[in-house]
C-alpha cells in the first residue's frame, strides 16, 4: 500500500516536472520560464542603464573606457584597434544579442531549429539562394586583408566574451520564450550578415515575371507597361553628364531563345527598402559649411536595425550608425568627412536556364560541352521532428534554385541563380577605411573595394568637397541582358565583363551646389553601359531636387525639415486628372465633401488629415481596377509601376488596359476613375465602422514598429507620423526612415544630429525600450556628442564604464 502510494506520487511529480520543463505548442516551458530566480522575472530592468562602473573581460589587451550619453549611445575609447572592435562587439551584444543571432538564423535557413516545421519552406528558400555560400566566399576574401580580419576577429571575440558570461537567467527574453540558447559567434556569421543586407537590398529582380509578361502581352504591350525610361527623369548623376572613357564592349548573342514561363517565383525582398541622401556645398548653406543628410528606409523593427556609437582609438575617431553583426560604422562622420548610403538599384541577379544531361544532374550543357555540377546536401534540423534533407545542385553560375525539388514544376524548369553576392568581396574593409578616411581620395580608395549591395555613397568633407558615387560590382551587359531569363547553355549569355570601378558613376562638386540620391535611375543614356532595374523610385528624388534647387542659405534645421517632408508627389501628378474626370453632378453630400477636400488639398500627407486617406483609398481602387488583367493569371506577374500607371492615365486615357475584364461595356480611364472614387469612399466607410474611429492619415496608414517576432506587447502600433510610400518622409505601414542623420562639416568643427525609431537596448523589459520613437515621429533630432578624447567632458554624458583586461 505504502509502495503504491509512493510510486503513485512519484509518478505525479514526474508528470508535473515533465510538463513544466517542456515547451508545448510553441509556449515556453512554464517551470523554467516562471522561476523567479532565472525566468522572465529576471528580464525586467528599473533603470535603463544598470551597468557596473568597473568590468573585467578576458581577451582585452588594455583598458577601455565606455561613456554613455543621454540617448545611451556608447562612446568607446580604446588604445588599439583590437580592443576597439572587441568592445564594439561586446557592448552591441549586451544590448542586441538575440537580434544579432536570430536574423542570421533566418539568413542561414535555420529557423525550423527553433520554431519547428512551419518554417521549413522559408528555410529551404533561404538556402537555395546561397546566402551562406556567398558568406563563405566573403570570409576567404576577408582573410586576405590583415586589418580587416583583425577587426572582424576582435569583434567576434567581443561578442563571445559577452555570450560566455551568460546563463539562463541572463538570456534575453526571446531565448526564454522560444526555449533555445545562444551559440558562439563566428567570423562567418558577420559575413553572413552582410549577405543578408545584400539579400534585402540587391535581390529585387523581376526577370521571370518579365519573361512571363513578355510572352503573355507581346513586345509592344510589354514596353508600354514596363518602359525602362520616361521623359522626365531626374537621375542620381545629373542629366547631360558626359563620359570620356573607352567602354568595354560585350558581344550580344544572335538567334532566339524560347523561354519557358514560370508559374510561381521565389519570395522577394520588399522593394520599399530604400533611402534618401542629399549633400549641399558651402555655396548653398547659411554659414558656408557643407551639410550632408542621410536616412535609410528599411523595415521598421524592434530591436532596431541600427546601433549608434562612437569609436575612438589611435588613427580613428568616428561616430555614426553601426549594424548589429558588423564591425565598424556604416554611415557616419569623423572630423574630416561624412558619408552615407542609399540603395543603388541595378539588376545584379540573373536567372539562367539549365539543361541537365540526364536525371543524375551531374552534367549540364554549356555551348558544345557538358560541365560538371557540384551537389551539396543540406540538412534542416527541425524542432520536435526529424531532420529534412535537400540536395542543392550548383553550376558555375550559382545554385540551381528552381529544380525538381523546389518550385520547378515537376522537372520542367531548372534555373540557376547568378548574383554578385555569391562572389567574394570584403565590404568590411571599405567601412574600415571609410571610418578613417580624411578626404575625397581616401573615400574613392575605400569605396573601390566595395562590391555589394550596390550603394550610392554620398560624401562630404570639411574641406568643402561633395560627391556621390554609384558603387558596386556591376556586370557589363548587352541591351536587355538579364531583364529576362537567360540561356545557361549559351556562353554569350554570361556576364562577359565587369565595369571597372574607375568607370562607375560619380559626380563631384557639381555647379548646382548639391548632390542627391533616392533609389532612382542612376544615369541618363549618355553613360555607355546598359543600366536597368525593375523597381526604380520616381518620386522622392524629384521632390528632393526640386526643393534643393529652390533652397538657399541652408541650415541644418532645413535639412531636417526636408528629411521629414510629407509632400506627396504622386498625388500631385495623379490627383488633378482624377478630379477633372470625376462626374460631380451625381455626387451626394458626403461624396461632395470628400471631393471638395481633395480639391483644396495642398498634397501634404500630414498625420491628422483625412484627405490623404481619401486620396490613397481612391488611388488603391483605381490601380486595382486598372490592372485587373494581371489578376487570375496562372503565371507569376509583376504589376506596372505606380509612376507608369500615372503616366498612362495622363497620356493614354483610352488605352485598352482601362477596359475591365468581364464587363459588357468598354471602359476608359474616366470610367475607372469614377467607379474607383465610389469604391474608395466605400472602403473608407467600412474601415471607419470596423475600427470605430475617423480615418486620419496616421490611423489609416497605421505605421507600426513591430518586434521581429511580431509580438504585440513588444511592438509599438499606430504611431502618429505623416509621410508615406514615395514621399521623402517615406514612413509607410511597416517601412520608414530607420536612421536619420544630418552632419555639418566645417574646418574647425563637425556637428551631427540623428534619431531613429527605436532604442539602443533591445530588451523589452528595459524602460528605454523604443524610447526614441516619439521624437522620431515628431521629426526631432538629438545632437550627436562627438568627443575628441576620453578626457573631454560634456554635460550630456551620464555614465562611464571602465573595462579592464582580466
Amino acid at each position, binding site marked *: 500500500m*505504502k*509502495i503504491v*502510494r*509512493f510510486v503513485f*506520487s*512519484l509518478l*505525479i*511529480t514526474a508528470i*508535473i*516536472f515533465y510538463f*513544466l*520543463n517542456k515547451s508545448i505548442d510553441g509556449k515556453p516551458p*512554464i*517551470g*523554467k520560464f*516562471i*522561476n*523567479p*530566480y*532565472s*525566468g*522572465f*522575472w*529576471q*528580464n*525586467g*530592468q*528599473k533603470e535603463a542603464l544598470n551597468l557596473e562602473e568597473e568590468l573585467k573581460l578576458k581577451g582585452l589587451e588594455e583598458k577601455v573606457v565606455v561613456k554613455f550619453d543621454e540617448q545611451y549611445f556608447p562612446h568607446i575609447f580604446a588604445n588599439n584597434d583590437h580592443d576597439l572592435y572587441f568592445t564594439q562587439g561586446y557592448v552591441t551584444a549586451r544590448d542586441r544579442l538575440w537580434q544579432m543571432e536570430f536574423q542570421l538564423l533566418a539568413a542561414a535557413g535555420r529557423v525550423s531549429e527553433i520554431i519547428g516545421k512551419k518554417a521549413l519552406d522559408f528555410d529551404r528558400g533561404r538556402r537555395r539562394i546561397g546566402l551562406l555560400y556567398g558568406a563563405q566566399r566573403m570570409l576567404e576574401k576577408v582573410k586576405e586583408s590583415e586589418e580587416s580580419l583583425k577587426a572582424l576577429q576582435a569583434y567576434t571575440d567581443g561578442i563571445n566574451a559577452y555570450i560566455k558570461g551568460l546563463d*539562463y537567467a541572463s538570456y534575453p*527574453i526571446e531565448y526564454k520564450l522560444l526555449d533555445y540558447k545562444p551559440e558562439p559567434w563566428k567570423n562567418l556569421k558577420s559575413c553572413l550578415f552582410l549577405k543578408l543586407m545584400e539579400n534585402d537590398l540587391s535581390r529585387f529582380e523581376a526577370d521571370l515575371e518579365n519573361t512571363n509578361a513578355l510572352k503573355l502581352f507581346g513586345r509592344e504591350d510589354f514596353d508600354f507597361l514596363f518602359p525602362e525610361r520616361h521623359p522626365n527623369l531626374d537621375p542620381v548623376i545629373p542629366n547631360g553628364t558626359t563620359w570620356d572613357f573607352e567602354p568595354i564592349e560585350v558581344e550580344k548573342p544572335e538567334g532566339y531563345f524560347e523561354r519557358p514561363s514560370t508559374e510561381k517565383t521565389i519570395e522577394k525582398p520588399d522593394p520599399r527598402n530604400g533611402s534618401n541622401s542629399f549633400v549641399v556645398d558651402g555655396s548653398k548653406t547659411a554659414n558656408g559649411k557643407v551639410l550632408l543628410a542621410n536616412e535609410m528606409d528599411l523595415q521598421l523593427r524592434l530591436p532596431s536595425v541600427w546601433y549608434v556609437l562612437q569609436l575612438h582609438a589611435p588613427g580613428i575617431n568616428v561616430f555614426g550608425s553601426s549594424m548589429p553583426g558588423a564591425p565598424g560604422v556604416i554611415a557616419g562622420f569623423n572630423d574630416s568627412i561624412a558619408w552615407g548610403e542609399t540603395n543603388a538599384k541595378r539588376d545584379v541577379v540573373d536567372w539562367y536556364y539549365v539543361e541537365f544531361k540526364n536525371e543524375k544532374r551531374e552534367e549540364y550543357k554549356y555551348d558544345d560541352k557538358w560541365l560538371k555540377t557540384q551537389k551539396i546536401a543540406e540538412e534542416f534540423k527541425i524542432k520536435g521532428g526529424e531532420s529534412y534533407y535537400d540536395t542543392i545542385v550548383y553550376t558555375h553560375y550559382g545554385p540551381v534554385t528552381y529544380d525538381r525539388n523546389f518550385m520547378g514544376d515537376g522537372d520542367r524548369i531548372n534555373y540557376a541563380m547568378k548574383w554578385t553576392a555569391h562572389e567574394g568581396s570584403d565590404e568590411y574593409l571599405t567601412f574600415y577605411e571609410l571610418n578613417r578616411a580624411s578626404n575625397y581620395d581616401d573615400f574613392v580608395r575605400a569605396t573601390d573595394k566595395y562590391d555589394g549591395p550596390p550603394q550610392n555613397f554620398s560624401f562630404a568633407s570639411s574641406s568643402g568637397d561633395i560627391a556621390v558615387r554609384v558603387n558596386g560590382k556591376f556586370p557589363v551587359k548587352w541591351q536587355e541582358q538579364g531583364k529576362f531569363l537567360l540561356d545557361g547553355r549559351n556562353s554569350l549569355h554570361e556576364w562577359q565583363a565587369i565595369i571597372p570601378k574607375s568607370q562607375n558613376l560619380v559626380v563631384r562638386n557639381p555647379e548646382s551646389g548639391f548632390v542627391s540620391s533616392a533609389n532612382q535611375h542612376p544615369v541618363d543614356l549618355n553613360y555607355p553601359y546598359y543600366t536597368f532595374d525593375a523597381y526604380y523610385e520616381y518620386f522622392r528624388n524629384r521632390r528632393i531636387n526640386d526643393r534643393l534647387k529652390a533652397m538657399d542659405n541652408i541650415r541644418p534645421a532645413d535639412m531636417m525639415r526636408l528629411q521629414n517632408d510629407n509632400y506627396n508627389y504622386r498625388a500631385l501628378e495623379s490627383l488633378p486628372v482624377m478630379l477633372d474626370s470625376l462626374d460631380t453632378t451625381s455626387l451626394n453630400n458626403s461624396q461632395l465633401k470628400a471631393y471638395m477636400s481633395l480639391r483644396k488639398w495642398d498634397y501634404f500627407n500630414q498625420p491628422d488629415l483625412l484627405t490623404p486617406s481619401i486620396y490613397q483609398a481612391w488611388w488603391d481602387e483605381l490601380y486595382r481596377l486598372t490592372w485587373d488583367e494581371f489578376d487570375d493569371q496562372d503565371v507569376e506577374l509583376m504589376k506596372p509601376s505606380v509612376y507608369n500607371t500615372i503616366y498612362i492615365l495622363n497620356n493614354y486615357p483610352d488605352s485598352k488596359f482601362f477596359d475591365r475584364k468581364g464587363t459588357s461595356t468598354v471602359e476608359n480611364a474616366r470610367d475607372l476613375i469614377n467607379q474607383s472614387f465610389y469604391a474608395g469612399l466605400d472602403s473608407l466607410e467600412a474601415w471607419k465602422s470596423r475600427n470605430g474611429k475617423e480615418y486620419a492619415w496616421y490611423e489609416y496608414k497605421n505605421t507600426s514598429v513591430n518586434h521581429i517576432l511580431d*509580438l*504585440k*506587447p*513588444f511592438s509599438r502600433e499606430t504611431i502618429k507620423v505623416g509621410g508615406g510610400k514615395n514621399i521623402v518622409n517615406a514612413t509607410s505601414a511597416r517601412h520608414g526612415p530607420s536612421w536619420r542623420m544630418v552632419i555639418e562639416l566645417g574646418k574647425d568643427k563637425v556637428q551631427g544630429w540623428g534619431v531613429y525609431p527605436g532604442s539602443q537596448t533591445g530588451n*523589452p*523589459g*528595459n*524602460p528605454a525600450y523604443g524610447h526614441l520613437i516619439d521624437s522620431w515621429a515628431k521629426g526631432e533630432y538629438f545632437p550627436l556628442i562627438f568627443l575628441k578624447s576620453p578626457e573631454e567632458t560634456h554635460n550630456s554624458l551620464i555614465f562611464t564604464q571602465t573595462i579592464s583586461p582580466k
Partner: protein
Amino acid sequence: MIFITRLILISITCYLAGAIMPWWVIIVCSMVVSFLLPGHNFNSFLSGFLGVGLLWMVLAWKFDMESGSNMSSKMTQLFKIDDPIILILATGLIGGIVGGFSAFTGNSLRQIFIKKKKPSFYS
C-alpha cells in the same frame, strides 16, 4: 512544530539552491527535507506547498518591484492576463504545486521504511 520546521527548511533550501541551480531543484529540496522530517501525508504536502509557494511568490514580487514591473507588465499582455499580481500568484501556485507533490513523494518514500507501531496489547 515539525510542520513549521519542515516548511521553513524547505523554504531555506529552495531559497539557497534556487539561486544557483535550475528551477527543478525545488523538487529535490522538498523531497529530501520531507524524507528527513516525515509526517502525515497531507501535512507534508502542505509544508511543501506553502514552503515553495510562498517563497516563489515573495521572490517574484521582490524581483518585480526591483524591476519596476517593466517585464511582467509585458508578460501580462502576452499571455492575456489582467494584472501582474495574477502572475505573481500564479508563480506561487505553480511553485506550490510542485513543492507540495515533491514533499508528499519524499514523505511517502520515508513512510515505506517506518514500521507502524503495533497497537499495544494493553491499550
